[in-house]
């Protein structure tokens, strides 16, 4: 196109409208105006009297203060909008050129829609070629007419509409060679995992990852809202601490000026101090660091811990009820408000929907042992449950009660930490409990010993150096209320709720013994 016939577009003074002026020669007449985000034809008489010329502006259009064009979200493209001319900003997910047509799939977070550029009245052959050559993952602005389709498009989230493109602009271009192909990311096999981990800026773009992390955000929000409604106070606890709280083996050491310090394994000690400080009910959300060299599908070295601690009045079952009610409210909130996300994840990772009972089922440890023995497992009364046994028990409970979430109460005292309160009626057992989702443990909690003397005795029984935990014991010397609590891992809860198989899928930037970046 001859350069001097290109229109020169600028904003008229004291007008919010765009007006396109012809640059050509002495022709200073307004040829077109922009109303409501739509650029009308710019008509210019050429020397031989030809009529309209369609112009495609390459590059970005700068709008004055308020945009005249409204961008429609992809998930709003439904048959109701058929026939409308709309603007959409999305990424090019795939493009496929076939002679006079180019099929594009435009993707926006979890949703995608098919779009078509065809040679015809509105598009030239060059435009089709231009569209086909835009690099994948580039962000484009598209003006198109929404058209209803008879045959549903299975591969897209918007299955009954298609866009017929009239104008297309590139907003931000992606490099031609991507470190991974996003279609590979949505395939169910596991080989994509390693590569996906490395290109963390790209991996979460997939519709599935979007859904997973939105759901995770929902879990965190429901946790906070439910507890705040119950009168809990959110606290922040320090992560650099002077002494290992749970035992020295699994802590990370950091150099702290002239000495060393440790990264907190759990906010246990500080939660309890807050209870002694009469906060009554507290919770905290923050990172937890465990230096365990376990390369399993469900362990991370750093994860987000959601911890609860509360004082109770007469029986530690009040604590269990409070925690299970919080979990049930979270499950209900996810079931009611995040169905789209659950379905999206289910397309790539199909699983059974998560089932639960309200109020939560509570079984006693001895009952669990009896159920396992009935199923043929041999184990002692005071033996801890191994992971395969936990899974088997989960299946038995699911079979009988049809629930994926339950509490196992009254664990044997011998397998619990030193600060667990023993059962007053039977000294082999303790007032402690574990909660399971889909047969895997998500929470380990107990009533804590709030009497300094009993705590000292139990610590000595476990051969713990009293000097190291002196400040911990001291916090109970000045009248501590009876209390208990527990903590869950956000990533693990999401993984088990959705029925995924690796906790790294629910951690945006996972940390394990072999992975330190991104």
């Amino acid at each position, binding site marked *: 196109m001859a350069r001097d016939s290109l229109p020169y577009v600028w904003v008229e003074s004291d007008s919010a409208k765009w007006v396109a002026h012809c640059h050509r020669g002495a022709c200073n007449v307004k040829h077109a105006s922009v109303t409501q985000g739509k650029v009308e034809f710019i008509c210019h008489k050429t020397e031989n009297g030809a009529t309209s010329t369609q112009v495609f502006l390459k590059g970005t259009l700068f709008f004055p203060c308020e945009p005249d064009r409204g961008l429609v979200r992809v998930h709003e493209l439904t048959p109701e909008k058929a026939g409308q001319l709309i603007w959409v900003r999305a990424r090019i997910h795939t493009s496929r050129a076939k002679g006079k047509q180019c099929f594009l799939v435009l993707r926006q977070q979890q949703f995608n829609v098919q779009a078509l550029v065809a040679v015809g009245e509105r598009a030239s052959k060059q435009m089709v070629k231009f569209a086909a050559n835009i690099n994948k993952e580039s962000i484009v602005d598209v003006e198109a007419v929404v058209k209803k389709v008879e045959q549903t498009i299975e591969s897209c989230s918007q299955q009954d509409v298609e866009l017929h493109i009239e104008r297309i602009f590139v907003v931000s271009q992606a490099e031609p060679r991507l470190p991974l192909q996003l279609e590979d990311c949505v395939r169910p096999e596991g080989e994509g995992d390693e590569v996906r981990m490395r290109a963390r800026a790209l991996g979460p773009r997939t519709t599935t990852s979007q859904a997973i992390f939105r759901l995770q955000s929902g879990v965190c929000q429901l946790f906070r809202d439910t507890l705040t409604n119950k009168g809990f106070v959110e606290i922040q606890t320090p992560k650099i601490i002077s002494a290992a709280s749970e035992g020295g083996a699994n802590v990370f050491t950091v150099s702290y000026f002239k000495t060393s310090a440790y990264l907190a394994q759990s906010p246990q000690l500080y939660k309890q101090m807050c209870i002694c400080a009469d906060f009554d009910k507290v919770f905290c959300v923050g990172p937890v660091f465990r230096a365990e060299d376990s390369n399993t599908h469900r362990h991370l070295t750093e994860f987000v811990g959601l911890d609860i601690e509360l004082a109770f009045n007469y029986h530690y079952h009040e604590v269990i009820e409070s925690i299970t009610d919080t979990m049930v409210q979270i499950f209900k909130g996810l*079931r009611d408000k995040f169905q789209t996300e659950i379905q999206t994840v289910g397309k790539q990772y199909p699983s059974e929907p998560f*089932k*639960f009972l*309200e*109020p939560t*089922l509570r079984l006693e440890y001895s009952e669990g042992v009896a159920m396992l023995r*009935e*199923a043929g497992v041999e184990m002692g009364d005071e033996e801890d449950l191994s992971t395969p046994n936990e899974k088997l028990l989960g299946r038995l409970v699911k079979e*009988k*009660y049809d629930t994926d979430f339950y509490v196992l109460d009254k664990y044997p005292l011998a397998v619990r930490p030193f600060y667990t309160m023993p059962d007053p009626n039977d000294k082999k057992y303790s007032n402690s409990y574990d909660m399971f989702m889909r047969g895997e443990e998500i929470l380990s909690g107990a009533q804590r010993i709030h009497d300094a003397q009993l705590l000292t005795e139990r610590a000595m029984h476990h051969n713990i150096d009293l000097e190291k935990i002196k400040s911990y014991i001291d916090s109970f010397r000045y009248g501590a209320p009876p209390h208990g609590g527990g903590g869950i891992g956000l990533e693990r809860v999401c993984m088990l709720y959705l029925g995924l198989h690796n906790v790294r899928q629910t951690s945006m930037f996972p940390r394990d013994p072999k992975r330190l970046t991104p």
Partner: protein
Amino acid sequence: MPMYQVKPVFGDDIKTDLPTCMYKLPNIHAQRSASGCSEHALQNGTEVDPAFRDLEVRQDKIMRRLYELKAAVDGLAKTVTTPDADLDQTVTSLSQSPTATSFRGTADLDSLLGKDLGALRDIVINANPARPPLTLLVLHAMLCQRYRVLSSVHVHSSVSGVPAQLLACLGPRHADSYVRQRFQLGFTLIWKDVSKLQMKFSIQNMCPIEGEANVARFLFRLVAPYPSDPALATLVDSWVDTAFFQLAEGSAKERSAVLRALNGALGRDPWLAGPELSLADIACYCCVLQTGPAASCPANVQRWLKACENLGHFGPANPLLQ
């Protein structure tokens, strides 16, 4: 008023030899262990005349006897209208402590359900809140009288909400419910979106039992044995099936036919099968009242309904019939 104190002349530590040829009477002045008695006797903090205390004790005994007589008379009045009830169940619980036969031991459960391995024997029932199983609620009440039952109600995630009376249908929570081991039997009712009522008991040894009629038969056998006479047992079973299939789920014609059959059978005998209340009566009662109010039934049926109510077992079903 201050008086001149005289030192004791006669010491009180002299032992007297009581003669052995006389028979001994219990000391009528001594404090009795009855709680009411001691409160009365220590009025104003001082010891009261023993004869007075004696009188109070006699009065308490007479009052108690009076109440018992009144209760017995009330019971008799009800038994006149209720055939073959030995004693009115609603009144017995007030006056006397439960008799020895009403609480069966664990040995009975062991013989009926198999040896327990240390786990609470938990009966799990999945029911649809749109069709609450009234028969099972009545049987649950009967089970609670025979055994120590831990009852709990849960709502499954497939159902979004359940009215409050369905959550409270098994009665208030037992005080001991925090220790599951102290109970002989568990009864867990789960409101779930199921097409047919389902019961699960032992995963390893039993398949699930479906249908309210069948679960009712299972639970009834824990309460009382089926009649040993096969003809009678078949009669009970046939009435139970009639109740659930034709009365509860049948068309209007089938229902009126069943009511006529009931009317005929109850004209001859006071209960549907045999000389006593049986599962047949329980099932028919619940199904009849679920289909329509008592007033619309034939005369014999109405009389029988009243007799059932007087027995006092059907309390749990009533709030759900409204």
